[in-house]
């Protein structure tokens, strides 16, 4: 089934495919990292909540991989499970292993706030299928952000070891968090056609204005760092390990249907 409007030029289609892949891979990879908490979260209720949120993220990735598959005449399962680690395009923020609870909360908070800025723009996309999915994602991400923010405040206000670990994690993740807004290949075309209503650099600025005043009282001044051209291309051993985990079942029986 192909729903790609025939009027999209090849260059636009390729740029749109890159955009879809970047958002989908972000959601997919953070979903798998956070699912690593299943069974070992700080308490039973949080275990269920974290696992459910991780599942939601993978659900968002699925919706986006399906859009991408429609556009490129591909198979969503192949895109998700049939690529080498080097072909993934998630932001460097999602290259790190799960870490401790403070680290996971720090990453979720940085990611959810960045995702909010991005989804607000994508919900206004001129590419209707994307605007529709982004609109639905926003409804769930609002809740995800509330949950991450509830933990952000608790760890920030706990004092002692919890607060130290949380502030250290934020400082450690800060440079890679900028890469959620790494420039996309063909971004000019996407902005020109209203597919991406605001350039990444503008979204980056508005995200910084949101989070700096909230985080800096805890972390101290956070360095100025522009998103880099390879911010979605760098891969790590941590991610290669995770990739081995999430492709294990698909690899065990090539072509199996489930």
């Amino acid at each position, binding site marked *: 089934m192909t729903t790609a409007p025939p009027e999209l030029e090849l260059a636009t289609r390729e740029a749109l495919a890159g955009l879809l892949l970047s958002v989908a891979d972000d959601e997919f990879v953070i979903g798998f990292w956070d699912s690593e908490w299943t069974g070992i979260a700080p*308490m039973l209720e949080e*275990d269920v909540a974290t696992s*459910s949120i991780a599942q939601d993220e993978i659900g968002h990735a699925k919706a986006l991989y399906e859009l991408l598959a429609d556009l490129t005449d591909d198979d969503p399962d192949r895109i998700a499970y049939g690529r080498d680690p080097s072909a993934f395009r998630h932001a460097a923020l999602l290259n790190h292993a799960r870490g401790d609870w403070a680290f996971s909360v720090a990453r979720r908070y940085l990611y959810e706030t960045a995702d909010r800025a991005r989804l607000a723009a994508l919900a206004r996309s001129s590419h209707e299928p994307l605007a529709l999915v982004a609109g639905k994602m926003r409804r769930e991400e609002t*809740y995800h952000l509330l*949950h991450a923010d*509830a933990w952000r405040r*608790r760890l920030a206000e706990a004092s002692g070891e919890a607060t130290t670990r949380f502030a250290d994690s934020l400082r450690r993740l800060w440079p890679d968090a900028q890469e959620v807004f790494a420039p996309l290949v063909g971004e000019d075309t996407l902005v020109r056609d209203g597919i991406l209503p605001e350039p990444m650099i503008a979204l980056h600025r508005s995200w910084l204005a949101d989070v700096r005043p909230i985080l800096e009282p805890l972390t101290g001044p956070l360095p100025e760092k522009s998103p880099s051209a390879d911010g979605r291309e760098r891969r790590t051993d941590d991610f290669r390990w995770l990739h081995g985990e999430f492709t294990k079942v698909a690899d065990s029986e090539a072509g199996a249907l489930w």
Partner: protein
Amino acid sequence: MSIERGERVWEVFRQEDEGDPMVHAGNVNAADEELAMHYAREFYGRRGESHRLWIVARDAITELDDPDLLKPPFDRSHKKPGGYVIKHKLEAAKARAVAEAPE
């Protein structure tokens, strides 16, 4: 899984559809109201099965379980409706209503 100090139990009631009665669903442990809301949502609403949830701190509930008040020792059968047989009266009233109904 350690139970943190200050953790409280919250009773959760759910409504399946607008207008349905609120029914006790179960409970969650949470340090405060905000997390209780998140956990109640995950436990009793994540599959879209609830229209509304009420989340109540267990210690805010007034409990009455005194048997002197709830299970008094004397015969209470006169307070139950079972003492009155109205079946025949009802049947007679229905028959009358049919007979008197205008054509």
